[in-house]
């Protein structure tokens, strides 16, 4: 067991990482960097699941399998997002979110 590290430290670390991801999501203009911010957010949630599982319910598996499933969903999401980004680049020759506005009116 982790002697000397309270559960709160993990939660604080994960929440700082989560909101750094949110900041990146709000300020970035490039689609790929927005995707990277989303990966930060997913990763911080994963830390939370594992820390809760280890500290509060060490005799169960739920947190761990949630973590596994989040990693799989993140992989699927990244694959689809990158396919979409490459297709957008083919149409507009840019991936800046402000220049991709064909469906706006």
């Amino acid at each position, binding site marked *: 067991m982790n002697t000397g*590290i309270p559960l709160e430290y993990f939660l604080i670390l994960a929440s700082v990482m989560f909101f750094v991801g949110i900041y990146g999501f709000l300020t970035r203009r490039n689609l790929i960097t927005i995707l990277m911010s989303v990966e930060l957010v997913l990763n911080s949630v994963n830390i939370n699941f594992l820390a809760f599982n*280890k500290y509060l319910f060490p005799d169960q598996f739920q947190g761990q399998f949630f973590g596994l499933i989040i990693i799989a969903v993140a992989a699927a999401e990244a694959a689809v997002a990158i396919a979409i980004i490459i297709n957008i680049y083919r149409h507009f020759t840019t991936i800046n979110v402000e220049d991709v506005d064909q469906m706006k009116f």
Partner: protein
Amino acid sequence: MTGNQLMFAIFGMLIIIFSILTVTSRRILRSAVFLLFVLVSTAGLYFMLNYQFLAAVQLTVYAGGIVVLIIFSILLTSHISEKFEVVGMKKQIFSGLAAIAGIILTISTILQTEFKATEVAAKEVDMEAIGLSLLNYGENGFVLPFEVISILLLAAMIAAIVIAKKGKTQKP
């Protein structure tokens, strides 16, 4: 300060510094490499929590797969030497305020909550236990999420191929 705490401090500092650099760096490839550092440090945290299997999955799928995919798409869509323009001051201030307010709210909630530590002995999480409960439908069984996630991955793979395939009508 025990060794455990020292390792946690190192990983925590690495994660926070490199995640801030990931969202603020003006060169996109550097930003991807900083993201890689964040993911590897997170795998270190999983090792500290004694979840070896998840740490290995994190290293192979996240750090090995997703980051390589992101770097490939960066190379396909951007000029490496290009720098992003500086984000506008107003946008920076408001986004920063939103993020800091969120951090303060979350941390104050966390510090006010009493978490009940359990007396239950930790269960050994080895590969055999994980494999058995992934295909088990009884107590501690996770066969339904396993099947759902496999169908999701198949659908995502087909969707990615279909979307990225070059259409017949759009010639440059």
